[in-house]
């Protein structure tokens, strides 16, 4: 459990309201037509702090005695994630349409 406060308040309570507010902004940003680039920037800009808030406070990756080693454990797959997303997901231009026959379903032409 957390042994610290955020602005003098219970960290879980503050985290909960922070997540609720960020989500409301997220949904509102899509309702207001701002263009693809701005909308995408807002969504990414909100997803990252939400991700960190849940991991750090709700999942106790901040503030516990074993937080450091468990954070390292949680970040271990980051290397593979980077490889998968950036070196497979964003490169290999032919990956979507030029897969070899053996890894395509039989009905796909």
């Amino acid at each position, binding site marked *: 459990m957390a042994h610290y406060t955020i602005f003098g308040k219970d960290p879980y309570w503050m985290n909960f309201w922070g997540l609720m507010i960020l989500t409301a902004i*997220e949904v509102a940003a899509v309702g207001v037509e701002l263009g693809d680039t701005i909308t995408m920037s807002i969504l990414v800009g909100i997803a990252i702090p939400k991700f960190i808030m849940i991991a750090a406070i709700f*999942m106790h990756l901040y503030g516990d005695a074993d937080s450091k080693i468990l954070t*390292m*454990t*949680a970040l271990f797959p980051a290397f*593979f994630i980077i490889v998968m997303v950036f070196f497979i997901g964003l490169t*290999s231009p032919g*990956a979507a349409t030029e897969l070899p026959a053996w890894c395509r*379903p039989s009905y796909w032409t």
Partner: protein
Amino acid sequence: MSGDYGHDDHGHHASPWGPHDWSHGAPHNSFAPLIMSAGFALFLYGFANVFVGGEVADLGALSGVMLGLIIVTIGLLVWWRQDMTFDGVYEPKATGAPFRNIDIRKVSMWIFLMSEMMVFTSLFSTYIRYRLGIPNCNDVFLSGEWIEGTSVVCFEPAAHLIASSWFHLAPGAVNTFALIISSFTVVLALKTAKMSDKKYSDKYEVEMENVQAHRSRKVAVFLGATLFLATLFLTLKMIEWFVGFPTPGPLTNLNHGHSEIASLYTEGYRINADTYQHYAYDTSYHDGKDIPPDSALYSMMQAGTHPGGVMMADIRVGASTFFVTTGTHGVHVLAGMIGLAYMTLKGLRGGWGPSNAVTIEYFGLYWHFVDLVWVLVFPFFYLF
């Protein structure tokens, strides 16, 4: 109960099928994970062969699915038999670096979550690859490179349908808030379970002899609330995918004049949709807007080189990535609900207190992870 768990337990296995003698130390070796891995492999191989293009193609593969599930169940029973001694509460510590002296269950849960991260990363990287690698259906439509009656391959993000109106977006948005609230209720359950008798008695003005039952019931209320929110989540997902819902009368205008919010299934957004047609790709309607004058389609129609009409699209890849990713997340919610149901019942029977509250913490790690994944799924599959 409070044995020294720091040394190994060579020679203290009564039988390879268990139970493990925890009082002589931990951890112990087990072949249960190997059995379960083989079962999962068979299950997934069979499952991949049952459906082709959304249709049941090979009923014979169902036997592989069932056999896989049976083997997984056997593995679970072996594991249960080895670890569940029913003679007390043990919380063994890890003995090896770098996790020395951290509860084994906590380390195990984090390693499990690491593998889960890899599962969802595979799904996300697939989505990114296909979304960026296959032309977007709206771009293809506006390019004019299509002929009515002939299907073109393009990527149709579910967000095109879901984020088209507040009503379509409502189930996903409510679900997002539901998961965040459910993460908070799990934390409240943990905080309550960990509260000492004295503190609990002072805070809620309960007689000391009644603290255990009162506190456990309170934990059950928080866990029950989490279970309710998880049920709401899956119910709304089913409504969004298959059922749809009516638009309240006075608000029909906000839904482009339609009296019903159609489900994705009704809209034709399916994993086997190779002839998908939608009013957004109809030159006479086009999402209720005019064709943009700076588009190639507009120029071609003005010049008389494109007759217009309704574009037919093969959206199987886009729909598959959406349903597989959100479906995999949904399965995780369902698995959590099974755990929550058990834990809520245990709370109602007076089973939770400071001595075993860490179990709620470890379940909470899983539940927060499910929330964490949704934090990424919601914006990139539902909103954009």
